[in-house]
């Protein structure tokens, strides 16, 4: 974990000043910020920048959206993270990364880290990332196309809408590709629909959902769960009531 943190720090320092630090665009619920210098907790306010040397804790009912020049990030309860202009260290929980802006192509690649992995994200699009019990990370493409690369790797792995990849801890690379039903995913992911409406994101999500429908050749009564060991992940039975997914979940928007 220390090695990963060190790499994260090194990379971050090399990119300072290229892009502005993210500032708070939306917040709700219990969110605290703890500075690494004085270890004191302080409140986080809308419009304020998130200090570099700090860790943010999203508690009960938390909804937090950060934005800088070319990217936005969303977090909910259980997420703990540190962030800078072009990077995010996700200690726990999940986040939504939205870098559809054209400026993202000119900016430094986004560095997304979990306790035991570091991932370089290039390209334009939206993805969800979630820290796994194994220390690795699960990444799910929502819109656009990302090119993902591990620090020790030379080759890029592409992540397109509806594709899930596990980033295995301890330098074990990527897991196999899993396709997800976007209709079910998008309609049930609170990181998407429990935030202020973003019309352009909604449009992109609707587009990919429509695009995927005729391409689905088979559906399984199973959903992807946690990865508790480096080489495995869980497949859980999908309750019958989730069939057709979206209709079963009222949208709170």
């Amino acid at each position, binding site marked *: 974990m220390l090695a990963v943190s060190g790499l994260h720090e090194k990379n971050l320092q090399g990119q300072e000043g290229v892009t502005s630090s993210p500032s708070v665009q939306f917040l709700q619920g219990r969110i605290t910020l703890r500075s690494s210098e004085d270890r004191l907790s302080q409140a986080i306010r809308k419009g304020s920048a998130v200090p570099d040397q700090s860790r943010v804790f999203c508690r009960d009912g938390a909804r937090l959206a950060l934005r800088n020049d070319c990217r936005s990030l969303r977090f909910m309860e259980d997420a703990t993270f540190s962030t800078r202009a072009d990077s995010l260290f996700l200690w726990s929980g999940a986040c939504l990364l939205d870098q559809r802006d054209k400026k993202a192509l000119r900016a430094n690649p986004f560095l997304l880290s979990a306790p035991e992995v570091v991932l370089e994200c290039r390209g334009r699009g939206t993805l969800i990332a979630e820290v796994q019990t194994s220390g690795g990370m699960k990444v799910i493409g929502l819109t656009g196309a990302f090119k993902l690369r591990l620090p020790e790797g030379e080759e890029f792995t592409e992540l397109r809408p509806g594709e899930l990849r596990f980033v295995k801890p301890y330098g074990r690379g990527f897991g196999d590709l899993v396709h997800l039903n976007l209709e079910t995913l998008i309609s049930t*992911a609170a990181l998407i629909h429990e935030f202020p409406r973003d019309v352009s994101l909604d449009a992109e999500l609707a587009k*990919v959902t429509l695009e995927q429908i005729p391409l689905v050749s088979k559906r399984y009564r199973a959903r992807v769960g946690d990865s508790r060991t480096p080489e495995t992940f869980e497949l859980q039975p999908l309750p019958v009531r989730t069939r057709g997914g979206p209709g079963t979940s009222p949208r709170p928007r």
Partner: protein
Amino acid sequence: MELTLRFLNFLKGEAFCWSCPYLLRAFSSFAFIPATLFSGCGIGLDSFGTSNSSSKSAAEATGTIFKKDEQGDSKEGKQSQSSPTGVQEVVELDHSLSGKLLIEESERFRSVLQIDVKSYRSSNITRVESMGKSAAATEYTTIGRLEFPTSLDLLFFKTFTPSLTALGQRSYFGQYEIDSSDSTDEALRNLDYEFRSITLGGEGRSNSDWEINLSLEYDELLDFRSHDKLYHAIVSSASFGRDYSVFGGGILGFGIAAEYALTKIHQQYEVPGVFDDAGDNLRTALNLSLTQPLDSGGRFYLTPSASIMRTAYTKPTSTGRIDYLMHVELAAVYRIMPWLYLRSFTNYQDKTANEKAKALLFNYAEYNNWDAGLGLGVSLSF
């Protein structure tokens, strides 16, 4: 027919000027519906759990299947239906998605071809003051639209998209009966027409999300049997409007448009007063429309709309003539496929006019009319 031109004007004023054709507005507004889409749609999906494919799926390759009571406490319960990362249902795809963003598409040239066939019944086909005879009409419309790359931060616009639109429409009257009272009189063939237009326009969006549209278009009306031109017009228009989110997924559109037409009449159309061909005129319009999805799948929309138009003639012989047309419509659009839609509609038009118009048009100056019908359309994007 007036409906047709009013419809065309509606297209000009609201749709083409405010982002997309009116029909497409409902058709494409799925884009604004967070994608709780297409529950149970019939696309040849197997039932759940039929994992008897000969090919090994990715899930089978690496997954460990847990029964519910074996799941332990790692993430169980967190991935509920409202969890941050949602329900990650495994599927197999024929191939991966393109990964093209809509915003990327706006940065290049793109084109749309829309073909629409509509059959409807008009209660007052000749648009006369005393209730005229009813008849059926068939309308074929083709719209081709080329959109140029969107410019960002141009003047006071956040985005600005120039476009070139060509429209052709042919209408046939009294060919068949929808109701037993409908006329199929041969004389109704004289009402048949072809309308063509080509529009160069630009759609700008301000930082406050107001849409401002400017356009210049050429219109002409033809008798397609004799190939005679009935009239042509050069129309410059400006409009502004704004969309508001309502009722969850609904979009309420509000707009004001003004256009000035320079017209030249070559031959009188069969029914006077229907087309705005009696001389140069200034038209102002107020439009209100709602696009409301009715299902969670985003396939079924209700699109009520209302507009009031005032047309004031400035020269030569009709100077002083003013017409007012109120148009109220209720339409439902069902998208059978992403590119194919079915539309049913009913609308009411009430035209009133000033004394000058009455003196010029007599029994044709004012009327009211009900239309109702069905349409089938195809919309293809390239």
